[in-house]
């Protein structure tokens, strides 16, 4: 009887061990779902799809993109947060996650996930004006805003990345703008083309043809140094406005996903980021493959989050003021 128990125990142990080994050796053994918390066709979606194309080759399993759109991306991030931590569901998102928390949409942040690292960096966050406008640079725009407080319009998507930028901008320059919501990137283009607004905050890749065709003028990019892909555009810092907002894209797994699985996925990201083909394809959309390990990414994202929360009061005040205007 005892020997039977021993054998049984050994068998169980062997089984457990073999599973453990399998988990270590064989990941992934089935397709991996990557949730994009935005609709198909946007920059998050496109970046994720390009990455997926190359990740598939590295991981040897299909990487399936699932778009879960709605509620500023919080529906998608929540879905991943509540998924099984088995390494087969990941989230691909950008700094809007901090904004969701800042605006009180969610009560969690990236630290409530397992970070697999930053994969893509977008240093093309710019302010754009209509080419027929009198604003040649940031200072023209700032002085116009100071001359007519609350009259010069800036279009954003409330609670979005560009909303934070414009709050930081007003804080840094003392300009008093009429910040209006016009919706998504495509709607911003329409609003600026139709001269319904004076300036918009957007990514360069989306409007580059409008610059080339002479309809739009870029008055500054929010990066620390000039972006080599758009070397003629001066930074905000050069123009005396001390702010820089890179948009970074990262992968998160549900909390409790085994470290070696996250590590494996992260290694695959690193390989893709180093792949010249992937780089070239991402560069077409004016973004660059820039890998950060989970540890480095965590540190970087914590810093960024702190910066963002500096503007929490401003954002909340903006919200309250708006409520008052409504009343």
């Amino acid at each position, binding site marked *: 009887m005892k020997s039977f128990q021993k054998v049984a125990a050994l068998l169980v142990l062997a089984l457990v061990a073999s599973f453990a080994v399998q988990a270590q050796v064989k990941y992934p053994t089935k397709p991996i779902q990557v949730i994009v918390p935005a609709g198909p066709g946007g920059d998050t979606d496109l970046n994720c*799809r390009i990455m997926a194309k190359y990740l598939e080759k590295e991981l040897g399993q299909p990487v399936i993109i699932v*778009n*879960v759109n*709605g509620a500023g991306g919080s529906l998608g991030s929540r879905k991943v947060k509540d998924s099984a931590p088995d390494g087969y569901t990941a989230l691909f998102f950008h700094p809007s996650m901090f904004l969701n928390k800042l605006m009180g*949409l969610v009560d969690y942040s990236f630290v409530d996930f397992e970070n697999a690292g930053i994969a893509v960096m977008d240093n093309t966050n710019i302010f754009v004006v209509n080419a027929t406008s009198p604003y040649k640079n940031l200072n023209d725009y700032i002085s116009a805003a100071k001359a007519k407080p609350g009259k010069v319009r800036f279009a954003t998507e409330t609670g979005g990345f560009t909303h934070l930028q414009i709050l930081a901008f007003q804080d840094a320059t003392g300009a008093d703008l*009429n910040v209006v919501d016009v919706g998504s990137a495509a709607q911003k283009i329409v609003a600026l083309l139709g001269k319904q607004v004076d300036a918009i905050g957007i990514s360069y890749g989306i409007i580059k*043809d409008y610059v080339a*065709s002479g309809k739009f003028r870029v008055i500054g990019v929010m990066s620390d140094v000039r972006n080599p892909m758009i070397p003629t555009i001066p930074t905000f810092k050069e123009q005396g406005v001390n702010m820089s907002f890179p948009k970074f894209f990262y992968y998160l797994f549900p909390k409790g996903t085994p470290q070696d699985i996250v590590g494996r996925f992260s290694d695959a990201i690193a390989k893709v980021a180093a792949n010249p083909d992937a780089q070239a394809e991402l560069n077409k*959309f004016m973004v660059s493959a820039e890998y950060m390990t989970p540890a480095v990414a965590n540190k970087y994202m914590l810093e960024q989050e702190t910066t963002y929360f500096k503007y929490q009061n401003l954002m909340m005040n903006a919200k309250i003021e708006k409520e008052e205007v409504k009343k």
Partner: protein
Amino acid sequence: MLELFAAGFASVFTLASMFMITLGVFVGIIFGSIPGLTTTMAVALCLPLTFGMPPAIAMSLLMGLYIGGTSGGLISAILINIPGTPASVATCWDGHPMASRGEAGKALGAGVVFSFLGTLLSIVALVFIAPPLAEFALLFGPVEYFALALFALTMIGTLAGKQLAKGIVVGLLGLILAFVGMAPIDAFPRFTFGIHDLDGGFDILPALIGLFAVSEILSVAESDFALKKENVLTKFKMKGFGFSVKEFLGQMYNMFRSALIGIGIGILPGIGAGTSNIVAYSVAKSQDKHPEKYGTGCLDGVVASETSNNASIGGAMVPLLTLGVPGDTVTAMILGGLMIHGLTPGPLLFISNGVVVYGIFASLIIANFVMLIMEFFGIRVFAKLLSVPKHILLPVIFALCVVGAYGLNNRVFDVWVVMLFGVIGYVLNKLKFPTSPMILGIILGPMAETGFRRGMQMNEGNFWLFFTRPIGVFFFFATVFMIVFTAVGNVRNRRKEEARA
């Protein structure tokens, strides 16, 4: 331009492209005709496949899907009174009564032909006057959207007909349900009761599936359908397209008006075929000398709905290709499909990639013809659907509705939304309330609110500045006119009835 056109056609007159167009139309019709599965979903599923293809072939497939899917919805709308996609909601209202009268062939034939003509007219508009049409989209700011939404809400009066009070109640119910979820602009959660699944509100598609498919299935399940012999099919006979030349010519004015409505609504970003079919139907009804015949199975209703929904295709392509701004959910994905091939729609696309643009035009035209041929020969096959016993057909459709609702956003919550709206639709039917005004409330409520709040932001909180925008003022006046017109008409009707009594 002729040269570019020739080059465009040449680029799609390859075996691979033609195959993709045919495949796209075929798959599109299937997705379109099955309630719950939509054109958007067909494109979403096929989009990743196109990433590995050359641009001309990729676009062939997507255009085929778009055209096939948009017209495919008419099949189930007419045969089983369940719209295959949101674009065919209004097709049910007269298409199904026609089918139950034994005129399924005529309804289907007209639907197919006018889908074809609607697409064709919109492509003509797209090819020849896309740039000026795009300027039209630029004239629409928040104030204009607010005014347009208000005006479109008055369609409730037309749709409700004699049941005006009930129609307004249902329309308001739709507006209230549209409030659930995060408020536009400041994302303040409303009526969510702390349930995070409600943060995103009720999506339009599950709501539509519930209201029109599930409620219909419940109603049929309750009736004694099993005992009745279906005799509709035995009456099914058709020659050619099932309608006479005279009937065809009688629809010319209706067709052009509906096509214009379809193109116009297609161009405006954010709304497309799902809205245009209802608006075109309402306009046709309100302008007709005999509005009472609508809903009883008149050809005009089918023609208005099917012409306008397909006309929205060319309309939605206008801002996509000229401005890089998608006109509806399908074109939003096609935008992604173009971008991944390094083609940025916008002012330079016609110049830098003229052949691709004209290749897209050519694909649309060819896909339109393929759709016509496929559906013409398919009508007889589709009509056999009616011979499938309903106790088998409807549960299958029910399952597909659930799959479709889930597939939309990969959330089980949306399946519950289908059920909820199914029950709402069923109860409304029982109480003899019209369900269609609810759809207008759900679609137009957020559009009106967002437009109003953005307009207030732009005008620094001064509502009176809304009246400085000409297009807005036009729609405000049209709104007031429609309300007065409907009210007076109702009072007059009642007086007449009282006099008779």
